[in-house]
Structure formats: structure tokens, C-alpha cells
């Protein structure tokens, strides 16, 4: 077996981390760091940016340049970093509430610009940090502290949202399919443009217990049982896909990237073209 090297990216002195027993966030962070390791990018040129939430604590456990910002605003902070220094690799870690509620506007605009940033959403379909209020990813009819009679809103499909907004690499994985997430992170980091990974996580404490799934294991089994690979899904009738989560590389395309475009602005302003 190959030596484990991704551990070098952990700030072990910061352990134990704050995540609850059974939470999927640690699994996804591990998958990310393996993906970073596989990508062979220079760690000193990698910056991890997050917002606020349980998921957003991740950069605090990582021995890289890290920026733990304000709720929902990781992407505009990351935009400043990437535009100012395009040679840096920038990754954003965000929760489903952080990214798509308070940060929803930044999400669609960063995707629209096709800025070369990798975004990983730790999607546990609930507000974990604030103890279980519904998020834009909470399924219809689910129970949440702010939906004590069942949730009446429809959730986003974050991948479709990202595609609609202009993202050029869009993938989904789960904590159960952590190996898949690792490979997606590697591909996302190598992709030139806005890359988005919807990483389904589980929150047994604030979502599972209220929704008839008591443990993290039960919730991960549900991830296993409801996930359908995008290639297989393409051949399945719509009715069979109801209630399934589609995983894999959902969308890959090429488009001009923001910082490359801005370099052309500089060339024009300086009279070089």
C-alpha cells in the first residue's frame, strides 16, 4: 500500500475537530485532501476559503493558507484572491445554506464569470451550525426546527443551478462515495474555470434524528441506496429516478475563463493588442 501522505495537510494540533459523531463533513474533508494530494498542485500556492457553518470550519484544520470568512461570502473573498493573484489555486468550502441561501447570489455570479475556482459544497440539507433550521436544500416534507409541521418549499438542485449559471465543471458525490469525491476534486482542481462539486454529507444530529434516520451509518446507507451514477441515470425512465440522487461528473464544458479574459483587458489597455 502506498504511504499515506495527505495527512501532512492537516493541522493535527487543532484536533479534535468540532464535528459531531456520525457527521459526514470529516469524510468529505479527507476526500478533498486526498484529491489535493493526487492533483500534485503546489500546496503553498493553494488557498482554501470558507464562509460560516460547520462545514466552513474545515480550512481551520488544514495546514494551507486558509480564510474563514463571513456567512455566505466565501466566494467573493475567493474572487478577490483569484483575480488579484491568478497564479494561486483557490478552493471554496461551503455549506448548503452558506452557498445557496445567504451566498446564492455570489454563487451564480462566480459561476457566470467562469472564474477558475473549485467550490465544494458540504451539502447536509440543513443548517447544522445553528442546530437544524431548514436550508434551501431541505427536502419537501422534511422536519426542521423552523419547519415543525413539515417543510413546504422545494429544494434546489445545486448542480442544475450551477450549470444554468455557467459553471464549466459540475459534479456530485457523497460521503459514502468518498473515493469519487477525491477523483472529482482532482479533476476540478485541474479544470480551467468554475468547478462545482455538490458533496452530499449527513447530519445525524440535526437532520437524521428528526427525519427517522438516527445514525450517520444509516444516513450513509441511504446515500448508497439512493445514488445513481449519471451514466446509468441517462438510461433510466424519469419515474424510476424519482427520489434518487444523481452522482458523477454531471457537466463538463470549456469556456473562456475570467482571469484569462482579464489578462486580455490588460493587454488591450496597455496597447499590446
Amino acid at each position, binding site marked *: 500500500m502506498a504511504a499515506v501522505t495527505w495527512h501532512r495537510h492537516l493541522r493535527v494540533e487543532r484536533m479534535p475537530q468540532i464535528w459531531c459523531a456520525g457527521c459526514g463533513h470529516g469524510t468529505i474533508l479527507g476526500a478533498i485532501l486526498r484529491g489535493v494530494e493526487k492533483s500534485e498542485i503546489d500546496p503553498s500556492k493553494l488557498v482554501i476559503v470558507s464562509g460560516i457553518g460547520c462545514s466552513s470550519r474545515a*480550512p*481551520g484544520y488544514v495546514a494551507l493558507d486558509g*480564510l474563514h470568512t463571513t456567512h455566505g461570502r466565501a466566494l*467573493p473573498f475567493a474572487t478577490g484572491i483569484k483575480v*488579484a493573484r491568478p497564479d494561486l489555486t483557490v478552493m471554496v468550502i461551503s455549506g448548503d445554506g452558506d452557498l445557496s441561501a445567504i451566498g446564492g447570489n455570489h454563487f451564480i455570479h462566480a459561476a457566470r464569470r467562469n472564474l477558475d475556482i473549485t467550490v465544494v459544497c458540504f451539502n447536509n440539507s440543513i443548517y447544522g451550525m445553528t442546530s437544524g433550521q431548514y436550508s434551501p436544500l431541505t427536502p419537501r416534507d422534511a422536519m426542521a426546527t423552523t419547519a415543525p409541521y413539515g417543510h413546504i418549499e422545494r429544494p434546489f438542485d445545486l448542480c442544475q443551478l450551477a450549470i444554468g449559471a455557467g459553471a464549466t465543471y459540475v459534479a456530485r458525490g457523497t460521503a459514502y462515495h468518498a473515493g469519487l469525491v477525491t477523483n472529482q476534486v482532482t479533476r476540478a482542481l485541474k479544470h480551467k474555470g468554475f468547478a462545482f462539486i455538490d458533496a452530499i454529507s449527513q447530519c445525524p444530529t440535526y437532520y437524521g434524528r428528526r427525519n427517522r434516520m438516527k445514525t450517520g451509518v444509516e444516513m450513509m446507507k441511504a446515500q448508497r441506496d439512493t445514488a445513481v451514477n449519471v451514466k446509468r441515470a441517462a438510461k433510466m425512465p424519469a419515474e424510476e429516478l424519482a427520489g434518487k440522487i444523481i452522482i458523477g461528473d454531471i457537466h463538463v464544458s470549456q469556456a473562456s475563463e475570467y482571469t484569462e479574459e482579464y489578462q486580455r483587458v490588460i493587454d488591450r*489597455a496597455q496597447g499590446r493588442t
Partner: protein
Amino acid sequence: MTLIPVKTKARLLQGNEACVEGAIAAGCRFFAGYPITPSSEIAELMAEKLPRLGGKFIQMEDEIASMAAIIGASLTGVKSLTATSGPGFSLKQENLGYASYTEIPCVVVNVQRVGPSTGQPTAPAQGDMMQVRWGTHGDHPVIALYPSTVRETFELTVDAFNLSERFRTPVILLMDEVVGHMREKVELPAQEEILIVNRPGPTVPRGEYLPYDDTRGLVPPMAAFGEGYCFHVTGLAHNRRGYPTTKPQDIDALIRRIHQKIEVGRGDIVRVEQLLTEDAEIGVFAYGSTARSAARAVRLARSRGIKVGLLRPITIWPFPDEAVKTLASRVRRLIVAEMNLGQMAGEVTRAAEGRTAIEGVFRVDGELITPEEILKKIEEVV
């Protein structure tokens, strides 16, 4: 770094234009903003000038994002600016507090218009004087400067960058619609005549860097992202290592230190201009465009034999307590003229400590306070 061409010829410049010239001269190479009257010229000119110098401009989706972007850019070691007005300044508050607490240098321009809310977009006001001080939540220090001429707008923009770099803190450059939009003939200094301050960088080996280490001074050296320092930044209460902490003694030390660094630097930060105050029996306190009317009123009153002088704060925050106290102990009356309902008058009253009676000339209708209005008040109190 590319130098701007040497300018010695006098030019007709708008306040907002002078701000852009000052920012570029100070070394600003990143701007993020969202259009809003009466500040938009700053964004438009930055969009034109920055790429010529290899700098970057981006129009963000809102002011929250603009504020976030300039902090991100500054963390890569690039001097950064945003500019806005009332409604946008309100939106910047949360991330402004973030920059203050995490000690990330940046400059925020607020060209004031009449509020509250959308108010009067094209009319001047000075209604954000207290928001500048207390707009973001929690205890935090603030540096805010306020020019009253176009030339001074250039100079104070350079100063704003220098102070933000030296003290590792956001600096707010206040203007008002009149200062931002008026045109004056100015001769800008040549680039080599301009003093430029850059943030102190780490001097220790990479593995030993503590981003909030205060053992060698109140302003810790700042690494840039991408240099291998594993620099962790959080808006949570943090220790010297930059890690979140819940230890009361660490949190107390941090919040007191960020105040102390500004307090200790007060002598270099706080500036005022005095006009005929030596023998004054009546004082006028005014700033920004209102100070122009006040200076005229003082001269008119002097020509009528009234001993009156003007105290003009150039630094608004930290508040020039000493200058106010000194003047208050000499004059019989201190008139505060401002385009709000007495925001600075409250501070003047506090600093005067009962040494004199305070009178106000206040306007909030989007009209400039005229020299005549101030003169009338002077004559009333003689």
C-alpha cells in the same frame, strides 16, 4: 511596480478623480465595487486606469461582495480599494468589521449622499459620521479621514492607504457629494515626492510565523497568501496563531490590542486644521464641504470685527478630542455646522467637557450649508 507618469502641470480635477489618482499613486492595484451615485466615477476611472498598470478591476454583484473581494485581494499582498455611498456603505458593514478584526489593510471610500435609505442620491450629506464609527457590530477601532478640497482628496487617499498598511486596519475615506463632484485646479506631486508605506512582512522562518504575534509590537507582521506561511485567517475570536479561541484572556488581549495600536498611533493619525483660532472668542467646527462655507463665514465675520476661528478636523476618527478641548476652553461659544442633525456636535460636546456652550447649524435637506447661515449664527451668539 509601474510608476505613474510624473505630473507637474496643473489640471482641472474632480474630487472622485483625485481619489483615483491618489489611490494609484499610493500603490493600489485592485478595485472591486458596485455602481452608486455619487461615487461611480471612482469605479469607472479605476476600470480604465488599473489594467494599464497591470492592476485589476472587477465590478462585483453587490457591495457585500465588493468589500469581501478587496479583503481577499489584500491578503495576497495587493493594496485594494472600494468606493460607495450610503446604501452601499450599509451593505459593507459586516465585512468591514471582518477586516478590522482580522487586521487586513484596505481602503473604503464613502461619498456621502442624503439618507436614510435611498434618500437623495445626487445631493450631499454628512449623515454617515456615526455609521463610520459604529456601523459594524462589536468593539473595534476605526480610522476615518475627510478632505474638503480636491487636492486634499488626493493627499488623504494616499494617507488612507499608508495608515491602513502601517496599522493593518481598514481606513475609511469620507467625502460628500460636493467634494466628490466639484472640480478644482490642482497640481499633483510627482510620484517620487510621495511617501509610500507598505505593511510589515514576516521576518521569521515560515514554520515559526504567528500571524497575530504581538510580542514585537502592536501591529503584527503580515504574510501574503501563496508564500508558504500557512496563514490562517478567521473572523472568530482568534489567538496569536490565528486559530479560533474561546479563552477569555486571549480574546480580551486581542480586542484591546487592536484598539491600542490605533490609540498609541493617535499622534500620527489625528490631524486638524486651525483657521484664525489663536485669538478666537467664538469657534466654528466644520468638516468636508461644510468647512468651505465655514471658512468663508469666519472671514466675513472677521471683516465685521468678530473674533471667530475655524477648527476643521481632517481626521474624523479617532476623534480629535485634544484640539476640541483646547479650543473649547478658549471660546465662549462653539458652533458646529454639519449636514446632519448633530452627529459630530455630540462628539464635540463630549470632548469639550462643559468648557463652552455648543450651538448647531444643521441641514439634512440635501442643500449645502451656506456661509451666510453660519455667519448668521456667529452674529447671533456674539
